[in-house]
């Protein structure tokens, strides 16, 4: 370690809420190195990174030292800190859309980023901005584009261009690809790697995704509950994890392989889509999709954002209008009466938004029973308790509110509500993508055992190929509103070029 660029020594951050958010974290970063900080939500990885640029709320008290080029970042005045931000340290955020001003062109925003720290003329700054656009692989015509005219991946390139505008020596990337699709994620990681090689910039990569770590990082720090659990090169940590927590974390990551899904006998279809198209005004989100799911079968519906997968879910649940035919247990969906609606269960992506914040857990689970059955009083409570038991939650949680629960617990409540009426069909729309890996693994296990016991047909929607492979009997790949490939052998022998690209972009943790 000859030229240490950033050296973090015994940093603790306390928000005054009992236990510190970060305690005694130390690490160092050399020039041109990519250091990944991994951990689940609440591990303190983001807090540590934010503390370096003084971006924590004023209630936080920070102790320790963070030396960047010999200066302690924590002892800088606001003016000095402003000099460091954007100049010596660039920042890439998770949500590119919210990191950019929607009413200014991206060109003027890059020009602004250049001019904040360099006193150059408007023309020079403009030339530099065009150069930066080329550097991040965007066509120069996009200079006059507004953020809403660009895709998520392009916007993240703009954010990266702004972050490297003043040739910083350190780039902090906080979950830079989490909000992006798989194929776009691969491109952005390629760009970051390329920038490191060309500009020699060191990258502090904050992520929860082991695949991203394996793809980009040189060294890795594993954090849990505010402490550093393990440090080492990616190879060391992934192949021979020393700590049990690291091993659990790595074991929870689902791997994608090229095996064929086990064949099963076809059953009578519970859900049948024939020639379904969905349009929003002139925009056609889904065109001519035909699918079937038999009783007890799990169909994995895979697609990137904008592929129309959520539109299909909304159509099946009767939330949007469609043309073509959708039947559940032989009945057309748009003509379903209230009594039949209980035959469809629904599990949402974000468990916090899917539960009424002002209703107790028991009330939320009881809701479908109140609407569709005559269970009341003690009988209802008993049924709710048995559902809580089925999703492996303690009965004592019945009178709690959603904000008192963890993410995994909330999603279990969502599943309990969805299976309350013993549905024929369960629609799960990205049910685990908001969860940490270890939690995701446990929720998926629960989901599988419930599916085996209750034998409902399941439309499992996800962008995560590994999760889908783990759970599904059959897979359909959706691209731009069309099913491009379907069957049990999609992973083993992909036929369609898009499927091949999707599989190639998927990151694995094998090193």
């Amino acid at each position, binding site marked *: 370690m000859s030229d240490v660029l950033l050296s973090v020594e015994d940093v603790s951050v306390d928000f005054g809420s009992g236990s510190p958010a970060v305690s005694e974290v130390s690490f160092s970063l050399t020039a041109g190195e990519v250091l990944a900080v991994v951990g689940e939500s609440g591990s303190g990885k*983001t807090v540590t990174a934010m503390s370096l640029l003084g971006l924590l709320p004023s209630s936080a008290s920070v102790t320790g030292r963070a030396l960047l080029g010999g200066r302690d970042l924590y002892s800088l005045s606001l003016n000095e800190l402003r000099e460091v931000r954007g100049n010596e340290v660039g920042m890439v955020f998770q949500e590119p859309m919210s990191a950019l001003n929607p009413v200014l062109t991206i060109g003027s925003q890059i020009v602004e980023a250049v001019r904040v720290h360099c006193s150059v003329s408007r023309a020079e700054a403009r030339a530099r901005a065009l150069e930066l656009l080329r550097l991040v692989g965007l066509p120069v015509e996009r200079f006059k584009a507004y953020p809403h005219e660009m895709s998520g991946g392009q916007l993240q390139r703009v954010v990266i261009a702004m972050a490297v505008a003043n040739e910083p020596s350190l780039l902090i990337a906080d979950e830079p690809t989490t909000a992006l699709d798989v194929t776009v994620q691969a491109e952005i990681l390629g760009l970051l790697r390329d920038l490191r090689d060309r500009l020699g910039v060191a990258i502090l990569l904050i992520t929860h995704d082991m695949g991203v770590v394996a793809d980009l990082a040189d060294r890795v720090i594993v954090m849990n509950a505010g402490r550093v659990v393990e440090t080492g090169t990616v190879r060391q940590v992934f192949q021979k994890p020393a700590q049990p927590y690291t091993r659990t974390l790595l074991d929870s990551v689902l791997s994608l392989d090229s095996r064929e899904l086990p064949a099963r006998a076809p059953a009578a279809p519970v859900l049948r889509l024939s020639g379904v198209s969905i349009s929003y005004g002139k925009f056609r989100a889904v065109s001519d999709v035909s699918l079937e799911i038999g009783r007890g079968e799990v169909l994995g519906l895979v697609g990137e954002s904008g592929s129309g997968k959520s539109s299909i879910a909304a159509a099946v*649940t*009767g*939330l949007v209008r469609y043309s073509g035919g959708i039947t559940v247990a032989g009945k057309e969906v748009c003509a*379903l*009466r*209230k*009594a*039949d*609606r*209980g035959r*469809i269960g*629904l599990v*949402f*992506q*974000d468990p*916090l*938004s*899917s*539960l*009424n*914040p*002002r*209703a107790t857990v028991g009330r*939320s689970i009881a*809701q*479908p029973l109140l*609407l*569709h059955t005559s269970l009341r009083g003690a009988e209802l409570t008993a049924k709710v308790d048995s559902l809580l038991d089925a999703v492996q939650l303690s009965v004592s949680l019945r009178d709690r*509110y959603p*904000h008192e629960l963890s993410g995994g617990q909330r999603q279990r409540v969502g599943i309990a*509500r969805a299976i309350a009426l013993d549905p024929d069909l369960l629609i799960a729309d990205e049910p685990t993508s908001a969860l940490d890996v270890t939690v995701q693994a446990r929720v998926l296990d629960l989901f599988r055992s419930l599916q085996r016991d209750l034998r409902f047909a399941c439309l499992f929607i996800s962008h995560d190929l590994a999760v889908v492979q783990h759970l599904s009997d059959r897979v359909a790949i959706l691209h731009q509103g069309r099913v491009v490939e379907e069957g049990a052998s999609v992973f083993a022998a992909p036929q369609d070029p898009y499927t091949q690209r999707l599989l190639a972009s998927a990151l694995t943790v094998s090193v």
Partner: protein
Amino acid sequence: MSTPVARSVPAAIRSVLARDRWALAGTVTVVVIGLVAIFADVLTAIEGHDPYTYDSTALDPATGLPAGVLGGVSGEHWFGVEPLTGRDLFAIVVHGARTSFLIGLAATLVSIGLGVLIGAAAGYLGGWVDRVITWSADVFLGFPYLVFMIALGAVVPVEFPRALLLIVVIGFFGWPSTARIVRAQVLTLKERNFVKAARTLGASPWQVFRAELLPNLWGPVLVMATLSVPGKVGLEAALSFLGVGVLPPTPSWGRSISSAIEWVAVDPAYLLFPGLALFAVTWGFNALGDGLRDALDPRLGAKR
């Protein structure tokens, strides 16, 4: 990146009273005047007067002004007496609190009730219902309602209970502002998955409103209600001031203030007491409402 935790309404009220001294002072003011209104008969019985009996002995026979200093304040008449009639001012102010509270609270109830129902219908149902309601709200907000109320006061027969008329009219004209805020809230709530979950289960709009929307609307509704009470109390006083409010001899702060204006040069104390009472109620509800808003609206932040 933690989402703001939805605090329950009673917990928010408790915390605001413990933390915010102005809100606490406002609450105490409102509660004290509320108790005065409820126990008006008891209080005036203790003092030994009622707001209706003329008493020329308390007046200066030469001028018709109250005998004694400060409008006749004495152990006998705590707030003095009314000029020309000699009616006890304490009894009038205390019974006037009844009128103000009754009309202010009942009209608020009417306007908030209408506003929540109409606003939620507009937000949740959308389409032409939303268009018609939004359009009507714009019309009502721009309507010269004071002129309308004055005209109505002149037309409606004297036998019709005045308090009821004021409650209905003031309450009715209050719905658009409530409906607008509720509509905006419902529009965001509608996109949350728990509402979608209820809809896909086949819950009717009324079931969704009762079980999913209403519990999430209590906070803003309570703040709106508290902040709109002083406006309603003031409107009642204004109408009574203009002579189209509650009819004499029912005591009303607005009418007392109106007649006190004519005497302000020679008997300023007559204006002072009803004026102070009106000020105290208005201030109290505003202070309480501001505190509640700080506590219930996560966007404003708890730190100050």
